[in-house]
């Protein structure tokens, strides 16, 4: 039996705002095996990013527990969670965020700096990581002058740099064309296959589903687990059909 890296137990998340209480996640239970490629799939506004934020320790749940590698994440205070994040996980965002005054190599080395590495060894590891994503030649440039696809590859190198067990990618292909999108997904696959890292990819792109070992379908804050070869839950399928119908209607309306 494959060992679980992440266990989500009874997670609930509510936001209270001026408009009242919004329940975003309901009683979310799942496990993610070590070394797996998991996709969190669902339509826009279904709670995918909130779930990823809860998993990364950035958004405490209203109720429930997240255990990563045996550590109950929210038993730690925010500084301890930061430290845990620095040791355990790399995050790739949909949008590219940078320390704009620093070069590509310094940006990639930043998680290593934060984990206490000295500049020389962190830079060497960052260069190795950049080499893996084919961006070593851009090491001394500023990241903001790179193209979207290049930036996303550097972002991937940053998540990989310190040899972290878990890579969380929040719609990393969302702002890319199909060619760059495919390249990023191929990179994620190779990271999983070659380095045996655990990948969690948030996406609403149905094309990527067959690549994953496990799926977490999310709809209106409810999560259903699926695995390779299993059929998609009907509510997700209905939601997709509705989206396709809506898009088709929009296209016809334009004509």
């Amino acid at each position, binding site marked *: 039996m494959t060992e679980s890296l992440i266990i989500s137990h009874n997670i609930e998340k509510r936001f209270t705002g001026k408009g009242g209480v919004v329940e975003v996640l309901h009683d979310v239970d799942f496990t993610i095996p070590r070394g797996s490629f998991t996709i969190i799939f669902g339509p826009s506004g279904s709670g995918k990013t909130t779930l990823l934020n809860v998993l*990364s320790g950035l958004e405490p749940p209203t109720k429930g527990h997240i255990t990563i590698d045996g550590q109950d994440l929210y038993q730690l205070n925010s500084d301890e969670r930061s430290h845990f994040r620095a040791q355990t996980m790399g995050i790739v965002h949909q949008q590219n965020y940078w320390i704009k005054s620093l070069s590509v190599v310094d940006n990639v080395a930043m998680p290593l700096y934060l984990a206490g590495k000295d500049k020389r060894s962190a830079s060497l590891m960052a260069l190795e990581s950049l080499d893996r994503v084919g961006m070593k030649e851009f090491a001394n440039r500023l990241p903001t002058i790179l193209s979207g696809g290049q930036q996303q590859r550097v972002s991937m190198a940053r998540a990989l740099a310190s040899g972290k067990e878990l890579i969380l990618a929040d719609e990393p292909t969302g702002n890319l064309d199909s060619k760059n999108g495919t390249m990023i997904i191929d990179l994620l696959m190779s990271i999983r296959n070659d380095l045996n890292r655990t990948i969690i990819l948030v996406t609403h792109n149905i094309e990527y589903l067959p690549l994953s070992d496990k799926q977490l379908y999310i709809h209106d804050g409810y999560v259903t687990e699926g695995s390779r070869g299993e059929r998609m839950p009907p509510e997700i399928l209905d939601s997709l059909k509705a989206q396709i119908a809506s898009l088709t209607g929009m296209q016809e309306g334009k004509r």
Partner: protein
Amino acid sequence: MRVPAVFKRHKKRLRSVIRPRILTYIALKNLFSKRLRSALTIIGIVIGIGAIVFLVSLALGLRSVVDQQVIGSKSVKAIDVTTPNSAIIPLDNARINKIKGFAHVTQVAPAYILPGKVSENGSLTDVVVYATNSTYVGLSALKFVGGNSRITNNSAIVSTSLLSLIGQSSPKSAIGKQLDLTATLSSASGTLTKPFEEKLIVSGVANIGSGIAVYISSAPLQAMGDDNYGQIKVVADNRSNVPTIRSQIAGLGLTTASPLDTLSEINNIFTIFTFVVIGFGGIGLIIASLGMFNTLTISLLERTSEIGLLITMGARKADVRRLMIIESLLLATIGGLGGLFVAWLLGTIIDTILTHYAGDHGIQNTIHAFLITPLLLLITVVFVFLIGWVVALYPSRRAARINPIDALRHE
């Protein structure tokens, strides 16, 4: 669904892991990326610190110049003792012996002060005669322009003003000349005893300003049996013991004076002057500090998403706080050092100009109107660090409280 059996608590205490050198590197990179803003902020600090150091060094320099002019080489451990009424409280050997018995007194040098006349080449000039010993002369800090300070039974030290009156313009040519001195010695009771007449050889010439005086040995007068001294100089072992000895002497009914009195008055005046200049310089510094605060706050607002990113990558609150504080300290340190350098440079230029100007008017001494003392340097460095730290307090706390999810949405 498996429920985790044990929710482990992360017990290990977290140390600050990011290296200060790397935080400094990041802070420097950020400051450098906003060159104009950083430069303007630093210029503000340079002006603020520079103004304060310049003005305070001027106050210290002037105080030092005045101290040297007023005190000269007089010993601050010496006390001048006189009597308010020699008939009632004579300054005699009995009292001198009492003073010698006081704790912390190392030397007592008495002097007769007599009215006298000097005749040379038929001209007669009124003088003040100090009949004393070499110790007293040494403590009087006379500025010798010819000869030496040694007094023997048949030699005398004369003032430059006396030389001028008797037609001797060159101190060196006056050495070895003979003077006829007559003085009137009075007893303690004020009854005239007998005139004192001596033929003396000039052994030294001292500049005592406009004073017309002759210093001779007291031995002949003491041999005449009189101990009605005009003044004594008492030397303490330490400057800090001077007040105690003075109060003990005052207890004998005698009057005391010390160079410390003058120093104290000078200090009071210059303390007020220093505070006034600090006040003026402080206004500049407050404006510069506000500029620094403004720069840090704007920098924080601009970098909200960067700070959010740092937290998602594993930065702790303390790391974020330190990054802001280091940025502020860098601004303050560079500005502070620049301010010190500018103040030193300006002071040196002005001192050089003053020295040249004084040289043109016959004053050969180098003028140090600006004085940057080690204490001033130390206070400035500490002050600069304090400013850097205080200015960063609010922005750094605010930065540490940033919610990373909101911050990343801020982009």
